[in-house]
Structure formats: structure tokens, C-alpha cells
């Protein structure tokens, strides 16, 4: 099975990000990591690969720093990695990114002669949380889409996805090839082993540019973006309320419940 996993490098979502004096997000000193949902996607893909055989290719649109994110993926299950990088890609919106990924997929298939059976994306990226790229990639590739997966299996050309619902879960079938977006599965992404980490360091990560893709410069990047951020703001700080620390839990509870009644919260 040939699997493609699309990943994004994002600022560490454990960091609390504020604005700089110039009104843009202050990312200085914030570690760049693989988007958490993408790590779940890669783990799910890796488990599937281990079950049915095959190879995993990871791709990412980004600058040189995204190379580290791809290297991380090579240490935990991926066999090949390509960095989609070009000044012309900068400022792409989700549809633009989906277009770059879609074209890259076709190029990689053309080069290897092996079509991808499954394309994994994270449900959303933790920085912008739009969750659009995976769905739009499916549209541009004209492939079936299953969103919000927590597990996957594959048999005789049919992908079966587990999708959680308010009552339990759905099992959804689709013919391969298809695009899936991954939510948090029941299992955590694996850690690299010392050896896989050292091996990943030596694996090639070839760059792919706009020219390599043969894509029209007018269709990607800033000038093609349909959404534009005008400015950033910080949300009004919620004023912290009253802290209660009475002698006993009972006294604390009594005061708290009285305040809840007073605020008509009960």
C-alpha cells in the first residue's frame, strides 16, 4: 500500500502565544513542532502500513525549517520525505496549500510510477485550526473524503474508517484511493527509537519547487489567496473571579454555591 501523509510544522501548541508590539503573533523562542493531529495521522498510517505492508511518503509545504518536521516523521514510520518549498508558495491560503499538495501528489506518482492508495491529513492544524486543507485536497484530487477518524483498516481495496459520534462510532467505507483526516486516536504516537532517529538523520529530504511542480505561479501564494488577515488582536482578558479558601471544604462549598445562586448560575 502506498500512503501519502501531509504534515505541517506549527509553533508548539503548549506555548501561550501573545502579540508583539507590532501586532503580529510573537513566535520568538517558540519551538516548531509537527502539528499534533499530523502526528496522529502518521501514527495511524504507520500502524496500517505495519498491518498491510507498503510505504509511507510524507510531504510538507514550508520553509527550510520544516525539514526538521519531516526528519521527525522519518524517525517514526515514514520512508520518504519531500519538502515543498518555494518563495512563491509563501502566503498561500488553505486552498492554495491544497493545490500545492495535490500537484505534488501527482508529480510524485509520476516519478515513482506508483499511485497513492491513501492520503492522510491531520484533522486540523493547532495554529489556525481551520481544518480546511485535507477536505479541499480531496476536492481538488476529486477523491472520496472521510473526516474525523479515530482508526482505520483496509481490506480488498476498501478503506474502513472509524469515526466517533455522540452515541458511539460509525464505520465508514470508501474505495481506495481516498483522503482521510485524523482526529485523536486511542493510541499515542510512538517515540522514535535511538536507532531510527539516527537513521532518519541520514535519509534524503528532497526539495520540490514551483518549477518542479509545473504549477502556475498565479494559482498559489499570496496573490492567489482568497482569505487575508487584516490584523491580529488579543482577546479581552477574562477577569479572574473570586478565589475561595475557607477553613473547611464545607465552608468553601457553602460560599461557592451561594455565589452560584446569586449569579443565577444554578
Amino acid at each position, binding site marked *: 500500500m502506498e500512503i501519502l501523509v501531509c504534515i505541517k510544522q506549527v509553533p508548539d501548541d503548549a506555548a501561550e502565544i501573545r502579540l508583539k508590539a507590532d501586532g503580529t503573533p510573537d513566535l520568538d523562542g517558540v519551538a516548531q513542532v509537527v502539528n499534533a493531529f499530523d502526528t496522529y495521522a502518521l501514527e495511524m498510517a504507520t500502524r496500517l502500513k505495519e498491518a498491510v505492508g507498503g510505504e509511507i511518503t510524507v510531504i510538507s509545504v514550508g520553509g527550510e525549517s520544516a525539514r526538521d518536521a519531516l526528519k521527525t516523521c522519518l*524517525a517514526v514510520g515514514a520512508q520518504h520525505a519531500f519538502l515543498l518549498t518555494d518563495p512563491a508558495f509563501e502566503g498561500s491560503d488553505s486552498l492554495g496549500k491544497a493545490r500545492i499538495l495535490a500537484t505534488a501528489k501527482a508529480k510524485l506518482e509520476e516519478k515513482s510510477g506508483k499511485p497513492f492508495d491513501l492520503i492522510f491529513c491531520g484533522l486540523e492544524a493547532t495554529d489556525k485550526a481551520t481544518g480546511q486543507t485535507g477536505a479541499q485536497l480531496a476536492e481538488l484530487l476529486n477523491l472520496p473524503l472521510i473526516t474525523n477518524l479515530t482508526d482505520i483498516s483496509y481490506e480488498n481495496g476498501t478503506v474502513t474508517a472509524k469515526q466517533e459520534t455522540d452515541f458511539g462510532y460509525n464505520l465508514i467505507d470508501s474505495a481506495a484511493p481516498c483522503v482521510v483526516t485524523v482526529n485523536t486516536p486511542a493510541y499515542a504516537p*510512538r*517515540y*522514535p*527509537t*535511538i*536507532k531510527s*532517529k*539516527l537513521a532518519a538523520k541520514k535519509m534524503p529530504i528532497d526539495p520540490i519547487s514551483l518549477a518542479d511542480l509545473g504549477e502556475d505561479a498565479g494559482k498559489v501564494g499570496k496573490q492567489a489567496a482568497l482569505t487575508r488577515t487584516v490584523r491580529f488582536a488579543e482577546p479581552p482578558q477574562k477577569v479572574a473571579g473570586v478565589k475561595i479558601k475557607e477553613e473547611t471544604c464545607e465552608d468553601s462549598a457553602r460560599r461557592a454555591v451561594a455565589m452560584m445562586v446569586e449569579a443565577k448560575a444554578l
Partner: protein
Amino acid sequence: MAYIISEEGQELLGAVKEFCEKEVKEQCKEYDKTGEWPKEIYDKAIEMQLHMLEVPEEYGGMGLDRVSVAALIEQMAIADSGFATTISASGLGMKPVLIGGTEEQKQRACDLIVDGGFAAFCLTEPGAGSDASAGKTTAVRDGDSYILNGRKCFITNGAVSSFYCVTAMTDKSAGTKGISMFYIEKDTPGLSTGHEEDKMGIRTSNTCDVVLEDCRIPASNLIGAEGQGFSIAMKTLDQARAWMGCIATGIAQRGMEEAIAYGKERIQFGKPVLKNQALQFKIADMAIKIETARQMVAHALTLMDLGLPYSKESAIAKCYASDIAMEVASEAIQMFGGYGYSREYPVEKLLRDAKIFQIFEGTNEIQRIVVANNTIGRF
């Protein structure tokens, strides 16, 4: 990073740090209370291959330089020094084989580690601590076998190891020259583990008695020749000491990090307490000590990598790093004030953890003897 490490080491550092932050640090707080050996954490560490950092490349290891390994071990120690001790003691248990063993013994021992095992080094006995020649454990040749009898105590990884390197008297009349070193795998009849220590610190490491009762092993399990055991044990400890210095440095580093974080947040007299120069100087003194200890560890390990003599440097590293770990942990508690003395906060554990590093693998008094002998020379 204060260690100057290889590109490979650099690559690994982030992954090991992340693992320790997410899987070790918080979890070990609880295990410190219960004293339970956290098997699931060690299983994860083994899966990540953290337990085999010291296995030589030719026997299936990674071939990392020692200073890079030290940077990784220090990360583990920052998270929990008991955890780091288990990992490092496994390296210790393997060393007698690597120092004095045959090709076959080396391959066998390393295979067991690579397959997910730990190792233990068994020298200390109830009546033989610093004075190894007072050991009562015996090994008697019987045809193609040796039969061992005796009791080893304070054995790190005693109950969790795949193999043991054990010293025993083959010639009681010869003193230290009568000590031999043996390789014994777990599940060998006659080998059992006894009393488990309920320790003051490093409570996530296992420490227990290892008991030998008519334990029969093939004669081929002798490491080196009869009578070489003491020399192999001393070489083992010479190397291992630098690693203990490394873990002690990690404890101190953690203490300083906690003190800085707390000092920035704790407001007294309307400002963070760390705005007081008196406390800033405490941090400066911690940094001076920690950095000095770390570079001494690195120096001793570099000498080892280069094949140069390292006894004195290794002893200095262990002795100094463990002394300053106690000082830094104590000062960190001081900076936390009353909270520092509370088990709810992370620093009192550091003092309990640090103490053993002044004691095991040669007390700091023994270290000073080693340093003195190496410095003064014969006269």
C-alpha cells in the same frame, strides 16, 4: 546545551528530552511516594532504546561518543534521577564483561541488553562495602563448573536484571588478588533476590540483595582469569563514576531550574523574590557549581573515549558533582522557603535523591583516596 556534543547527539537530545518530560518527570513523582518500580516507564524507555546507549556499536549499539550519551543521561536525571540510575546501572553491570570478557561473553551480554534487558553489578556485601577484600562470597571450581555461595547487598537493578556480574573469592588467602568476576544470567538455579531496600531517595530504581546458594555456573562464565576480579571491578568503577557524576549534575540542574522558575513567580514585598540580588547570587553559585561539575564529567568521559588514563578525573567528577548536587538541592529548598520542605513541591525529593551519589559506587571518602593517590604518588 552545556555539553559540546556530536550532531547525532544533538539530534537525539530533543527526542529524549520530550520523552522524559512527557513520560517520566510527572509520573515519577507518584512512584517516588509509593516506592514501586515503574515497569511501564522502563518498558517505554526500552522501546525507545534508551537502555542501550552504552552498548558498543560492534555489538549492536549506536556508537555514540560518551559525552553525547552523558547529555542524554543528564536529561533523564533532570526528569528523575532514579530513572537515570536504573539506565546507567545497566551500563555499569555490563562493563565487567566489556572490560575483561571474551568475545563470546561480550556478544551474549550485549544481546541480552539489546533485546530489552537490564544488568546489575554485584560487588558490595553486608560486611564488605568500601573494603571489597572482606567479601565472603565464594566460588569453588567443580569440574567444568563453579559453585557460588554468598550474599550481595545494595544491588541496583538486583530484581530486574537479565544478567549479573558478580565478584566472589576463589582464593581466600590471597586477599583482593583472590577475587574473581563471574557472569551469571537470571533464572540460573541458586540465584535469587532477597530483601528490597526501602530507600530515602532514587526510589524509582530497584535496590535489593542478590543471594547465591550453591549456584552452579559453567566455568566459561568466569570473566577474565581467576584472581582478576578485583582489578576488573576497580576498572568498572573507575568508568562508572563519571556517569554517576553526570546524574548528580542532572539533579543539580533540576534544582536550579526549579529555583529559578519559583523565584520568578513567588511575589513577596510586591516583587518576585528573584529580584533580590541575594537570591540571584544563589543562582549564580548554583550555575558555577553545575557547569564546573558538568565539564569535569565531560573531561573524564573524553579521556575515556581517547583511551587516556581517567581514574583521577572520573573520581573528581563523581565526588564533586555529588557534593554540589547536595548543596544545590539544599539551596533550592531554601529558595522555596517553607514550600520547599513540602512534598507537594519538587525540590525536597532532589535532596533525598542527591545523597546516595555521595555514597554509592565508592563513597566520596574513597573518591578522595583515589584522587590523593593519583595526585601525590608513591613516597
